[in-house]
């Protein structure tokens, strides 16, 4: 009897907490360029956002975000934006854009790896959808949760992603 009451109470409490969470959605912290945000494995500091016209006729324009990435973990990371990758999500007018390409500025080549204590300048490159008219865009940064001892094996794991911060900005170079 006591056990049933206990279980029922726990379920109700859990439900209530969920309802409460949805009732008052937490406002994400707003950041501005230059402010670092913790994404779990890496710390990302957005530096600037700029619009680049197409190099050749027929190619889409590109939106570039220059940023600084620092590995916060104790080992070299291949999946800097977590796995599956959750790079900063860019949305304009409510529509999300496809994932950006991450370029290591030093090499002008895709970023393959990030070593601890070696911060790198990178450029995130989005292809601009043809129907987009220049204006403010919003970026959502996701943080992957790390648990030192997970509930299954007690081993350290990277788990769910949660939105960590949001940034609204008008890209430079927009006509």
């Amino acid at each position, binding site marked *: 009897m006591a056990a049933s009451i206990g279980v029922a109470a726990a379920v109700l409490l859990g439900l209530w907490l969920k309802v409460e969470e949805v009732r008052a959605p937490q406002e994400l912290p707003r950041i501005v360029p230059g402010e670092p945000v913790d994404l779990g494995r890496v710390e990302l500091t957005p530096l600037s956002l700029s619009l680049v016209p197409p190099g050749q006729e027929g190619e889409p324009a590109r939106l570039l975000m220059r940023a600084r990435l620092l590995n916060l973990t*104790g*080992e070299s990371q291949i999946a800097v934006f977590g796995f599956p990758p959750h790079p900063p999500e860019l949305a304009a007018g409510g529509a999300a854009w496809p994932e950006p390409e991450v370029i290591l500025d030093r*090499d002008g080549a895709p970023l*393959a790896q990030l*070593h601890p*204590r070696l*911060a790198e300048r990178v450029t995130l490159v989005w292809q601009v959808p043809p129907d987009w008219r220049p204006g403010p865009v919003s970026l959502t940064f996701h943080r992957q949760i790390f648990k030192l*001892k997970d509930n299954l094996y007690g*081993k350290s794991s990277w788990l769910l992603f949660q939105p960590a911060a949001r940034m609204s900005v008008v890209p430079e170079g927009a006509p």
Partner: protein
Amino acid sequence: MIRGGSIAIVLAGAALLGAMMQIAPDYNSTVQPFRSHVAAGGTGEARSFRARFAGARLADRIAFSRFGTEFVHDTDGVFLIAEIEVEATIVSQRIDASWQGASGRRYALSRRAQDIPRGLDSHWFQPGLTGRAIAVFELPPDEVAGGELVVNNSFTAVFDSALHLAPPEPAGGSQSIILFEP
């Protein structure tokens, strides 16, 4: 009286369980390779290979050519170039290396130096033949002294041997550029 006794038993049980939870080794410390430490210049014996840390150099930049294209890479830290001698003892195999820095952080083989001539990541070691390969790491300069080279089987490191090789000698000054030639 009986109630007091039951409470005591429950409390003792809880204390015992709590103590067991505290002292039981966690997953991360149980599922590990079998480490052996090897002094500078010595040859370490792993389950399926033996390896020696033959030489280390430091460079601010590295240069090599891949598929006919020249690459020059620079870094905010320093490139550590390790020469490793390996002989497989059971079957032809590849090995993987990482650098455990002075702070304990693990630096994987630099992917910016992938496909360099005689690079470790593409080298197969044969039984009965000692092969020499190059491992390139990119790391802050203060992680070099006091660090060690960790060498293990390239497929599974867990529950297999891992050799922790001390560097042969203080790697000395850093060269401005090192060119890798076939």
